[in-house]
């Protein structure tokens, strides 16, 4: 199978994730969509590494996983503390600051 198809798949997953970030209202779901975008990046990296016959892209994929894990730690801490304060994880409810 032509590996370019995996690049298309990665672009599709990335687009789905980006659309989810913009459309969904629950902070946890928004965050999961960001993770989907990061995973799409991983797929693209691994595919390109295969096409170039190098290992750089696969190394980046490992780093991305670590970064995503660190982001989960920080992000969930913030989202959970907000949820405990407001009893809501909706990003629309957080609107104390407006123009």
């Amino acid at each position, binding site marked *: 199978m*032509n590996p*370019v198809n995996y*690049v298309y798949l*990665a672009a599709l997953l*990335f687009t789905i*994730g*980006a659309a989810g*970030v913009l459309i969904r209202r629950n*902070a946890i779901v*928004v*965050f999961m969509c*960001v993770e989907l*975008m*990061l995973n*799409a*990046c991983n797929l*693209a*990296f691994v*595919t*390109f590494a*295969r*096409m*170039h*016959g*190098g*290992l*750089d*892209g696969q*190394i*980046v994929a490992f*780093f*991305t996983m670590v*970064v995503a894990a*660190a*982001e989960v730690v*920080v*992000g969930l*801490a*913030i*989202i959970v*503390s*907000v949820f*405990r*304060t*407001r009893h809501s994880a909706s*990003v629309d409810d*957080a*609107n*104390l*600051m407006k*123009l």
Partner: protein
Amino acid sequence: MSATAVAAPAVHSLWTTAAAAPIHAPKIEYAQLSPILVVLGAAVAGILVEAFVPRRARYGTQLAVTLIGLAGAFAAVVGLAATGYATTKADLAAMGSIAVDGPSLFLQGTLILVTAVGVLAIAERGLEPQSREVPHVDAFAPQAAAVPGSEDEKAAARAGWSTTEVFPLTLFALSGMLVFPAAGDLLTLFIGLEILSLPLYLMCALARRRRLLSQESAVKYFLLGAFASAFFLFGTALLYGYAGTLDLGGIAKVVTGDAAPNAALNASAHGDALLLIGGAMIVMGLLFKVGAVPFHAWTPDVYQGAPTPITGFMAAATKVAAFGALLRLLYVALPEMRWDWRPVMWGVAILTMALGAIVAVTQTDVKRMLAYSSIAHAGFLLTGVIAGNKQGVSAVLFYLAAYSFVTLGAFAVVTLVRDAGGEATHLSRWDGLGRRSPLVAVTFALFLLAFAGIPLTSGFSGKFAVFSAAAKGGAVPLVVVGVLCSAVAAFFYVRVIVRMFFAEPRADGPSVAVPSALTGTAIAVGAAATLVLGVFPQWAFDLADKASVFIR
């Protein structure tokens, strides 16, 4: 089964070729990486202090560890610059991951000084109302995990607890910022971006007062920041797909045609599309960090909600680091693409300057006003980036150093003006401040005049440098827009000064807290840097000029 057996050699070729080559241990130039390593070491020491030192002694120990670490890192930067790593011996360290050259060392030195001044404001414990049981209260939540208004929080406040984790978090953020403008490949750039961002998201949520605003700002910053870094990473993937390497210099070679891109890929996936889309997405991620329009939406909310000392640190240091990275990406990896990125950057710069200056006029909160002013300043800095010559680089370096100290000083003054509810950030509360406490009002007026770019302040020297570089680089219309926007911006800065000195003070107006030596020093350093870089800028111009050549 037979089908897999036939396909096996193709699948395994990658592993066999990699295994056939002998593995060499990477060569790491520890001396050249020492500024970053010292800061990281101090941050790790801060974590250990948090774990093992009793709560009573933590504040003093943390402050000492942080300041000693910063002094060591600054000494390392000066040592490297003095031995010629900024000019003749500039080189790529750690297998090409970190560039040790003029812009890196200049920005690292600036960042370390900015953080040192920011830490002084962060360490202030004399402004909040105190009691006999709890003699020292700082600007951070007694226990960040406790629900605002809950019994847990009150108990933690009564016990005199404080979030001293903010010191190691600051150092971790700084270590990311030191890596960010020095990154020699896209992977290091991404890791630097994340290391600087993640602690900042947390620090935004730590305010002692107005915790709902603080938490809200953290959520917004985090979700939008993660969104932007995903774009950055996908752009990195596409550029890697185009060039087959992550090195900034290697990508530049493929762009100029000195090294061949992957032929099979180009035939099937339109290599130029990979280059253009990938470059655009990476630049998008960086423009988010500098707060340029249309990626600025987070700036006012985060600046307003975060604890004010953190806002000052973040506003000053993030901008320095992110503009350094943007310069390196555009000047090292994509210089041959300048006919593609310059028109886009023209649009971004004009929008950023205009929107920042015009929307700031309507603001009623001083922190929000300073946030929009920082957006406008991002636009002025972009005109220097667009210049596309050596003078542009040195002008941007100088502007970053000048602007960051003004920002630190201005936000440190904001922490002083208080009423019963904490900081009095509504502009109407600042009426007549000049009669009540002339020294604070005069200092704030100095910072506002520097933001506006009035001669004899550092703001004027910086604006003059970027605008003259941009004019030399052929961007005269951009300079005209920049000067017009400066005039609009001067209006709302001067309006605040008029309020402070010519309006009647309110009977229920805020009081001005007397700062301890910490915030006092921070404001004094900010004011001194503003005046020195405004009256005698030449030595700093020379320094920035010497430091303005990127290693490839």
